[in-house]
């Protein structure tokens, strides 16, 4: 009875129609909660919209460098406090209205406003005033010098929006990018179409559909059944070996800005004792975690910095896998037979699977970690806001975020005045050589102090049809930049 039933069903519908040559179906794991990059922290919003629909004054390139965006060029005053941007000519929003200095001032004032709900309000903290010189020129004066101001303005949260269309931007985004928003079927897909009036070079693609598949099996099935053309951030690393063996597909494994760490609550005993923290760090076997949890995807890190960044310092030798030394350190710290603590794990598989492996590794040296799987909302409340945790595993995917170790109120509560001085100096200097040296000093301090156990840089596997070209390999920022994507002939 079943067989006849399914046979008739299939006769009616063969596999999905093959993708037309100028359109693409991209799948990512999470669906954006809304479509306002300046109004929510969810990375999925930037993945879909950054550079495709919205643009900022500056822009991230595939290799992480910051290049001119809507600002053609700029001059910085000697004291580093005044930035004068010359805007590109003839740029229009998707609803036809022109983009000029007024829109830039409106966008920044909106982000800095008292009741602003911009998730990265801190990026605009140093701006004192934004003045319109003429429609093509805008001047931004800072309250104090900030070496990474151009870097900050490239973030998705700093894109330029228009007052005329900002009200229902959450469900009908209007930007200046090469693609226009077409349709959003909630829970299933978002469709973008090429914006004919784009100021820059027209993209190869005419239509792009973003599909949201969180479930690993469903992701594997969707790609294997060719329901989608590419899956950026494929959630099941264990299946990559099958895709590599299949000529229909290509597998790209790049790095993200995500430093995956085993964070320790420095404010709570026994983690306030550096010896205990070092013991925890030494108990960890990074390669076993990468193989077990991520099936080999991911590069080990010895400090809180992205390895693909030129200023990265290899400090792996400060925390080798040495269980015996770890037990000695625990004895030295007065805990000969170890201790018990909580290990709170957010939903992603790097945390849930990594957590099981780390718990068993810690058990080897006598540390009993009680695993608690919790939702992101609970993690933010219990761990991030209230600091109610012993250990947790999380991946910090914001670019260049080593500055969080300067904030004693940050959830792992690291309070080191020397480190704060280094960060102060860093933000004041713009000279690249000086900055590299300062970054190296910063990385060394937090590595030697074993603030957290630094595990690995979160890899981002992308599985795509063999004929697809121009996809980003790494993710310097959360974005699926389709501007350079096309089908090979």
């Amino acid at each position, binding site marked *: 009875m079943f067989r006849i039933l399914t046979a008739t069903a299939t006769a009616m519908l063969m596999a999905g129609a093959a993708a037309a040559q100028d359109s693409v179906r991209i799948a990512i794991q999470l669906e954006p909660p809304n479509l306002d990059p300046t109004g929510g922290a969810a990375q999925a919003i930037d993945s879909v919209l950054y550079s495709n629909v919205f643009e900022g004054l500056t822009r991230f390139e595939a290799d992480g460098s910051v290049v001119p965006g809507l600002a053609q060029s700029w001059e910085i005053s000697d004291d580093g406090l005044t930035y004068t941007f010359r805007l590109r000519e003839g740029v229009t929003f998707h609803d036809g209205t022109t983009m000029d200095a007024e829109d830039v001032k409106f966008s920044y004032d909106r982000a800095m406003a008292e009741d602003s709900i911009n998730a990265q309000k801190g990026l605009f903290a140093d701006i004192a005033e934004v003045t319109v010189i003429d429609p093509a020129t805008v001047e931004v004066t800072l309250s104090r010098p900030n070496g990474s101001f151009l870097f900050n303005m490239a973030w998705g949260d700093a894109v330029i929006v228009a007052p005329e269309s900002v009200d229902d931007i959450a469900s009908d985004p209007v930007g200046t990018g090469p693609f226009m928003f077409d349709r959003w079927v909630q829970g299933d897909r978002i469709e973008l179409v090429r914006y004919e009036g784009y100021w820059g070079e027209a993209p190869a693609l005419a239509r792009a559909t973003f599909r949201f598949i969180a479930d690993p099996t469903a992701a594997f099935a969707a790609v294997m059944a060719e329901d989608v053309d590419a899956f950026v951030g494929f959630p099941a690393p264990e299946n990559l070996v099958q895709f590599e063996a299949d000529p229909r597909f290509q597998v790209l494994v790049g790095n993200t800005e995500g430093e995956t760490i085993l964070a320790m609550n420095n404010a709570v005993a026994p983690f306030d004792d550096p010896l205990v923290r070092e013991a925890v760090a030494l108990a960890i076997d990074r390669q076993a975690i990468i193989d077990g949890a991520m099936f080999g995807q991911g590069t080990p890190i010895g400090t809180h910095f992205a390895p693909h960044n030129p200023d990265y310092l290899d400090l792996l030798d400060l925390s080798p896998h040495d269980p015996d030394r770890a037990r000695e350190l625990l004895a030295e710290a007065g805990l000969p037979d170890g201790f018990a603590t909580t290990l709170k794990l957010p939903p992603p598989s790097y945390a849930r699977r990594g957590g099981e492996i780390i718990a068993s590794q810690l058990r080897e040296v006598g540390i009993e970690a009680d695993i*608690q799987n919790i939702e992101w909302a609970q993690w933010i409340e219990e761990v991030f806001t209230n600091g109610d945790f012993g250990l947790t595993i999380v991946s910090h995917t914001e670019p260049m975020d080593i500055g969080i170790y300067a904030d004693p109120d940050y959830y792992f509560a690291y309070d080191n005045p020397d480190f704060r001085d280094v960060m102060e100096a860093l933000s004041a200097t713009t000279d690249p050589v000086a900055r590299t040296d300062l970054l190296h000093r910063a990385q060394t301090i937090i590595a030697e102090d074993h603030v957290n156990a630094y595990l690995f840089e979160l890899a981002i596997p992308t599985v795509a049809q063999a004929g697809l070209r121009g996809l980003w390999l790494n993710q310097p920022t959360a974005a699926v930049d389709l501007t350079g994507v096309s089908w090979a002939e």
Partner: protein
Amino acid sequence: MTVPRTLVVGAVISTLFLLLASLSFVWTPYDIETLDVPNKLRPPDGTHLLGTDHFGRDIASMIMLGARTSIAVALVAVGIGMGLGVPLGLLAAARRGTLLDEVVMRGNDLIFAFPSLVIAILITAVLGASAVNAIIAIGIFNIPVFARLSRGAALGLWSRDFVLAARVAGKSSFRISWEHILPNIGNLMIVQGTIQFSLGILAEAALSYIGLGAQPPVASWGRMLADAQTLTALAPHVALVPGLAIVLLVLGLNLLGDGLRDVLDPRLRTVRL
């Protein structure tokens, strides 16, 4: 009195799993606490009877420990369902037609109205996911089943002559419920209990499959299935073995339930929700 085949087969399968579960307190082929990542996903062979999973742990040992979790969760949940449901049903029957009866029955309909999975999701969202919360969720869902069943059976008995005789003998409705009604619906409760037990195993598997059941390091069949989901193409045995274990145990319990019903009282009205 020939014991029906279903009872024998059901009893054998169920006791086999019970033995496996209790044995796991003392001994399992391998210790599943220590991971052995290098030889992960090995197919069943001499050293690992049922192969290893994505962390290199021995699947046979995981199945034994998983059996312990499933049986414990389902048993306690049915216990809650029976412990609270049956007295409620007897009370409603003893006070049939009064407001109390109406309230109990309306309450039952209300719990039935909440799909069992939704109750589980709500509870675990509030108390966090764990085996205990799975027990509470499944237990709550079992209460109306037993309450409704015991009330129905008790109502039938209240009109019987021997209960009238007991009333003539001046016994209170509480004493009658305890001495006469409860023993006579005992068979029905045992048989329905076995069926609810097997449904409890399925419910626990579903809950831990969506991550709401027992949390690591406590082993659970549902979670083994969830972890193995992406490996079905790569290493099919990791997904097949836990599934088969669930099917076998549930089948065994159902056969045991049917067999018991035929032996105890073929006319029993059991309901499978």
